[in-house]
Protein backbone atom coordinates (compact mmCIF):
# COMPACT_ATOMS: atom_id res chain seq x y z
CA UNK A 1 0.00 0.00 0.00
CA UNK A 2 1.49 3.33 -0.99
CA UNK A 3 1.17 6.06 1.57
CA UNK A 4 1.57 9.45 -0.01
CA UNK A 5 3.50 11.77 2.26
CA UNK A 6 2.47 15.39 2.10
CA UNK A 7 5.09 17.97 2.91
CA UNK A 8 4.06 20.30 5.68
CA UNK A 9 3.56 23.87 4.48
CA UNK A 10 4.77 25.15 7.82
CA UNK A 11 1.59 27.13 8.13
CA UNK A 12 0.13 25.00 10.91
CA UNK A 13 2.55 26.35 13.52
CA UNK A 14 1.13 27.37 16.87
CA UNK A 15 -0.01 31.01 16.64
CA UNK A 16 1.72 33.49 18.94
CA UNK A 17 -0.30 34.41 22.02
CA UNK A 18 -0.44 38.18 22.36
CA UNK A 19 -2.69 38.30 25.37
CA UNK A 20 -1.40 40.25 28.37
CA UNK A 21 1.88 41.05 26.63
CA UNK A 22 3.75 44.06 27.95
CA UNK A 23 5.90 45.51 25.21
CA UNK A 24 8.92 47.75 25.67
CA UNK A 25 9.34 50.99 23.69
CA UNK A 26 11.32 49.38 20.86
CA UNK A 27 8.71 46.68 20.34
CA UNK A 28 5.94 49.27 20.46
CA UNK A 29 7.79 51.27 17.80
CA UNK A 30 7.49 48.41 15.26
CA UNK A 31 4.94 49.04 12.49
CA UNK A 32 2.43 46.32 13.42
CA UNK A 33 1.81 43.10 15.34
CA UNK A 34 3.30 40.93 12.58
CA UNK A 35 6.69 42.56 13.13
CA UNK A 36 6.37 42.04 16.90
CA UNK A 37 5.37 38.41 16.35
CA UNK A 38 8.45 37.97 14.15
CA UNK A 39 10.74 39.25 16.91
CA UNK A 40 9.15 37.02 19.55
CA UNK A 41 9.17 34.01 17.22
CA UNK A 42 12.94 34.36 16.71
CA UNK A 43 13.37 33.32 20.35
CA UNK A 44 11.11 30.27 20.05
CA UNK A 45 11.70 28.67 16.65
CA UNK A 46 14.20 25.89 16.18
CA UNK A 47 17.60 27.56 15.85
CA UNK A 48 19.89 27.01 12.89
CA UNK A 49 19.56 27.29 9.14
CA UNK A 50 16.17 28.72 8.19
CA UNK A 51 15.30 30.05 11.64
CA UNK A 52 14.48 33.54 10.32
CA UNK A 53 12.21 32.10 7.64
CA UNK A 54 10.42 29.96 10.22
CA UNK A 55 9.91 33.02 12.40
CA UNK A 56 8.62 35.05 9.44
CA UNK A 57 6.13 32.33 8.53
CA UNK A 58 4.97 32.00 12.12
CA UNK A 59 4.39 35.74 12.27
CA UNK A 60 2.22 35.56 9.16
CA UNK A 61 4.55 36.98 6.52
CA UNK A 62 4.37 35.67 2.95
CA UNK A 63 1.58 33.55 1.46
CA UNK A 64 1.01 29.81 1.25
CA UNK A 65 2.19 29.90 -2.37
CA UNK A 66 5.33 31.96 -1.64
CA UNK A 67 8.49 30.32 -2.94
CA UNK A 68 11.42 29.56 -0.63
CA UNK A 69 13.41 32.33 -2.31
CA UNK A 70 10.65 34.84 -1.63
CA UNK A 71 10.41 33.85 2.02
CA UNK A 72 14.20 34.07 2.35
CA UNK A 73 14.11 37.60 0.94
CA UNK A 74 11.29 38.59 3.29
CA UNK A 75 13.07 37.14 6.33
CA UNK A 76 16.35 38.81 5.40
CA UNK A 77 14.66 42.18 4.95
CA UNK A 78 12.98 41.86 8.33
CA UNK A 79 16.09 40.73 10.16
CA UNK A 80 18.15 43.61 8.78
CA UNK A 81 15.56 46.27 9.58
CA UNK A 82 17.03 48.70 12.14
CA UNK A 83 13.77 48.85 14.08
CA UNK A 84 13.54 45.06 14.24
CA UNK A 85 17.15 44.82 15.39
CA UNK A 86 16.48 47.33 18.18
CA UNK A 87 13.44 45.33 19.26
CA UNK A 88 15.47 42.09 19.21
CA UNK A 89 18.02 43.68 21.55
CA UNK A 90 15.21 44.74 23.87
CA UNK A 91 13.65 41.26 23.92
CA UNK A 92 17.04 39.59 24.33
CA UNK A 93 17.70 41.75 27.37
CA UNK A 94 14.42 40.55 28.89
CA UNK A 95 15.33 36.92 28.25
CA UNK A 96 18.75 37.35 29.84
CA UNK A 97 17.30 39.06 32.88
CA UNK A 98 14.67 36.37 33.27
CA UNK A 99 17.45 33.74 33.18
CA UNK A 100 19.34 35.44 36.03
CA UNK A 101 17.61 33.52 38.89
CA UNK A 102 18.43 30.19 37.21
CA UNK A 103 22.04 31.28 36.69
CA UNK A 104 22.29 32.25 40.36
CA UNK A 105 20.84 28.92 41.47
CA UNK A 106 23.38 27.09 39.29
CA UNK A 107 26.23 29.19 40.67
CA UNK A 108 25.11 28.48 44.25
CA UNK A 109 25.06 24.79 43.47
CA UNK A 110 28.55 25.04 42.00
CA UNK A 111 29.90 26.76 45.13
CA UNK A 112 28.26 24.17 47.39
CA UNK A 113 29.84 21.30 45.45
CA UNK A 114 33.57 21.01 46.29
CA UNK A 115 34.00 18.23 43.74
CA UNK A 116 32.91 20.41 40.78
CA UNK A 117 35.85 21.18 38.50
CA UNK A 118 34.96 24.90 38.44
CA UNK A 119 34.40 25.14 42.19
CA UNK A 120 37.37 27.47 42.78
CA UNK A 121 36.50 29.62 39.77
CA UNK A 122 32.94 30.06 41.03
CA UNK A 123 34.19 31.15 44.47
CA UNK A 124 36.60 33.63 42.85
CA UNK A 125 33.80 35.02 40.67
CA UNK A 126 31.59 35.73 43.68
CA UNK A 127 34.41 37.25 45.74
CA UNK A 128 35.45 39.52 42.85
CA UNK A 129 31.96 40.94 42.72
CA UNK A 130 31.41 41.26 46.47
CA UNK A 131 34.88 42.43 47.51
CA UNK A 132 36.79 43.68 44.46
CA UNK A 133 40.44 44.61 44.71
CA UNK A 134 40.96 48.36 44.31
CA UNK A 135 43.46 49.61 41.83
CA UNK A 136 44.19 53.31 41.81
CA UNK A 137 45.93 54.67 38.75
CA UNK A 138 47.04 58.24 38.29
CA UNK A 139 47.88 59.27 34.75
CA UNK A 140 49.57 62.53 33.99
CA UNK A 141 49.92 63.55 30.36
CA UNK A 142 52.31 66.27 29.31
CA UNK A 143 52.32 67.15 25.66
CA UNK A 144 54.93 69.67 24.60
CA UNK A 145 54.24 71.10 21.15
CA UNK A 146 56.97 73.70 21.26
CA UNK A 147 59.37 73.35 18.36
CA UNK A 148 63.02 73.61 19.09
CA UNK A 149 64.93 76.55 17.65
CA UNK A 150 66.67 74.19 15.21
CA UNK A 151 63.34 72.80 13.96
CA UNK A 152 61.96 76.31 13.49
CA UNK A 153 65.04 77.35 11.55
CA UNK A 154 64.81 74.24 9.37
CA UNK A 155 61.13 74.90 8.63
CA UNK A 156 61.73 78.54 7.74
CA UNK A 157 64.67 77.61 5.51
CA UNK A 158 62.58 75.06 3.62
CA UNK A 159 59.75 77.57 3.24
CA UNK A 160 62.16 80.11 1.77
CA UNK A 161 63.55 77.51 -0.66
CA UNK A 162 60.15 76.42 -1.94
CA UNK A 163 58.81 79.97 -2.09
CA UNK A 164 61.75 80.97 -4.28
CA UNK A 165 61.36 77.85 -6.45
CA UNK A 166 57.68 78.57 -7.20
CA UNK A 167 57.79 82.41 -7.07
CA UNK A 168 55.45 82.54 -4.09
CA UNK A 169 55.24 85.92 -2.39
CA UNK A 170 55.43 85.45 1.37
CA UNK A 171 53.50 87.85 3.64
CA UNK A 172 55.50 90.67 5.21
CA UNK A 173 56.91 89.88 8.66
CA UNK A 174 54.79 91.08 11.62
CA UNK A 175 55.82 94.22 13.40
CA UNK A 176 55.63 93.92 17.18
CA UNK A 177 55.71 97.07 19.32
CA UNK A 178 57.37 99.15 16.64
CA UNK A 179 60.16 96.65 15.97
CA UNK A 180 60.33 93.96 13.30
CA UNK A 181 59.76 90.46 14.72
Amino acid at each position, binding site marked *: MNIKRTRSTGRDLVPINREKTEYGPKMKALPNDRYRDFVRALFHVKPGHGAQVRAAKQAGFGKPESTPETMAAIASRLANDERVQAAIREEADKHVRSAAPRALRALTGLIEDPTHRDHARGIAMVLDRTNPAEIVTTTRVEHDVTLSAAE*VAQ*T*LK*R*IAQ*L*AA*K*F*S*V*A*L*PAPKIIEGEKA
Partner: protein
Amino acid sequence: MNAIDDFDRYFANGCERGTHCTKGNRYTLVLASTTKGCLKGEMPEQMRLEFLQHLDRMTDEYLKPEIIAMVQPMPDEAEELLREIRKLGPMEALDQYADPGVFRALVALNPSLLHAIKEADRVWYRRS
Protein backbone atom coordinates in the same frame (compact mmCIF):
# COMPACT_ATOMS: atom_id res chain seq x y z
CA MET B 1 44.83 90.44 -27.84
CA ASN B 2 42.76 89.65 -24.75
CA ALA B 3 43.03 86.39 -22.85
CA ILE B 4 39.86 84.87 -24.35
CA ASP B 5 40.96 85.50 -27.94
CA ASP B 6 44.39 84.15 -27.12
CA PHE B 7 42.83 81.01 -25.58
CA ASP B 8 40.50 80.43 -28.55
CA ARG B 9 43.32 80.89 -31.02
CA TYR B 10 45.63 78.57 -29.09
CA PHE B 11 43.22 75.74 -28.41
CA ALA B 12 41.14 75.93 -31.58
CA ASN B 13 44.03 75.82 -33.97
CA GLY B 14 46.66 74.68 -31.48
CA CYS B 15 50.24 75.71 -31.88
CA GLU B 16 52.04 74.19 -34.81
CA ARG B 17 52.27 70.76 -33.27
CA GLY B 18 49.25 70.96 -30.98
CA THR B 19 49.24 71.39 -27.23
CA HIS B 20 50.47 68.65 -24.93
CA CYS B 21 48.36 70.01 -22.11
CA THR B 22 46.09 67.23 -20.87
CA LYS B 23 43.00 67.38 -18.70
CA GLY B 24 45.13 66.51 -15.66
CA ASN B 25 47.58 69.29 -16.47
CA ARG B 26 44.73 71.80 -16.69
CA TYR B 27 43.30 71.03 -13.29
CA THR B 28 46.79 70.85 -11.77
CA LEU B 29 47.42 74.39 -12.98
CA VAL B 30 44.15 75.50 -11.41
CA LEU B 31 45.12 73.82 -8.13
CA ALA B 32 48.56 75.46 -8.24
CA SER B 33 46.95 78.85 -8.73
CA THR B 34 44.50 78.26 -5.86
CA THR B 35 47.34 77.08 -3.60
CA LYS B 36 49.32 80.22 -4.33
CA GLY B 37 46.24 82.25 -3.47
CA CYS B 38 45.97 80.48 -0.10
CA LEU B 39 49.66 81.16 0.62
CA LYS B 40 49.02 84.90 0.53
CA GLY B 41 47.07 84.61 3.77
CA GLU B 42 48.18 84.36 7.40
CA MET B 43 48.87 80.84 8.63
CA PRO B 44 51.28 78.98 10.92
CA GLU B 45 54.65 78.31 9.35
CA GLN B 46 54.18 74.55 9.50
CA MET B 47 50.93 74.89 7.49
CA ARG B 48 52.66 77.20 5.01
CA LEU B 49 55.35 74.56 4.52
CA GLU B 50 52.67 71.90 3.85
CA PHE B 51 51.05 74.07 1.18
CA LEU B 52 54.45 74.66 -0.46
CA GLN B 53 55.14 70.94 -0.38
CA HIS B 54 51.81 70.40 -2.17
CA LEU B 55 53.07 72.73 -4.90
CA ASP B 56 56.30 70.76 -5.08
CA ARG B 57 54.37 67.53 -5.62
CA MET B 58 52.45 69.04 -8.56
CA THR B 59 55.53 69.17 -10.78
CA ASP B 60 56.28 66.58 -13.45
CA GLU B 61 57.94 66.30 -16.87
CA TYR B 62 55.49 68.74 -18.44
CA LEU B 63 54.67 71.04 -15.52
CA LYS B 64 58.19 71.82 -14.42
CA PRO B 65 58.90 74.03 -11.38
CA GLU B 66 59.51 77.06 -13.58
CA ILE B 67 56.11 76.53 -15.24
CA ILE B 68 54.36 76.35 -11.84
CA ALA B 69 56.30 79.48 -10.85
CA MET B 70 54.71 81.35 -13.78
CA VAL B 71 51.19 80.73 -12.49
CA GLN B 72 49.72 83.66 -10.60
CA PRO B 73 47.39 83.30 -7.58
CA MET B 74 43.69 83.06 -8.46
CA PRO B 75 41.90 86.42 -8.29
CA ASP B 76 38.85 86.74 -6.05
CA GLU B 77 36.35 86.52 -8.91
CA ALA B 78 37.85 83.22 -10.05
CA GLU B 79 37.91 81.93 -6.45
CA GLU B 80 34.19 82.61 -6.22
CA LEU B 81 33.64 80.48 -9.33
CA LEU B 82 35.84 77.72 -7.92
CA ARG B 83 33.99 77.84 -4.59
CA GLU B 84 30.75 77.02 -6.36
CA ILE B 85 32.39 74.24 -8.34
CA ARG B 86 33.82 72.68 -5.16
CA LYS B 87 30.26 72.12 -3.92
CA LEU B 88 30.03 69.30 -6.48
CA GLY B 89 32.51 67.23 -4.51
CA PRO B 90 36.27 66.75 -4.89
CA MET B 91 36.35 64.40 -7.91
CA GLU B 92 33.64 66.18 -9.90
CA ALA B 93 35.30 69.53 -9.10
CA LEU B 94 38.58 68.42 -10.71
CA ASP B 95 36.70 67.39 -13.86
CA GLN B 96 35.00 70.78 -13.94
CA TYR B 97 38.29 72.69 -13.48
CA ALA B 98 39.59 70.94 -16.62
CA ASP B 99 36.33 71.40 -18.59
CA PRO B 100 37.17 73.50 -21.69
CA GLY B 101 34.36 75.98 -21.01
CA VAL B 102 35.24 76.43 -17.33
CA PHE B 103 38.98 76.57 -18.00
CA ARG B 104 38.38 79.22 -20.66
CA ALA B 105 36.52 81.32 -18.09
CA LEU B 106 39.37 80.86 -15.59
CA VAL B 107 41.93 81.91 -18.22
CA ALA B 108 39.91 85.07 -18.85
CA LEU B 109 40.24 85.90 -15.13
CA ASN B 110 43.80 84.59 -14.73
CA PRO B 111 45.76 84.75 -18.03
CA SER B 112 48.88 83.30 -16.38
CA LEU B 113 47.28 79.85 -16.76
CA LEU B 114 47.49 80.12 -20.55
CA HIS B 115 50.98 81.64 -20.44
CA ALA B 116 52.12 78.65 -18.35
CA ILE B 117 50.65 76.19 -20.89
CA LYS B 118 52.32 77.95 -23.83
CA GLU B 119 55.68 77.94 -22.08
CA ALA B 120 55.28 74.30 -21.05
CA ASP B 121 54.51 73.34 -24.68
CA ARG B 122 57.47 75.35 -25.92
CA VAL B 123 59.83 73.57 -23.52
CA TRP B 124 58.25 70.17 -24.19
CA TYR B 125 58.52 70.34 -27.97
CA ARG B 126 61.98 71.84 -27.85
CA ARG B 127 63.06 68.89 -25.75
CA SER B 128 61.49 66.37 -28.12
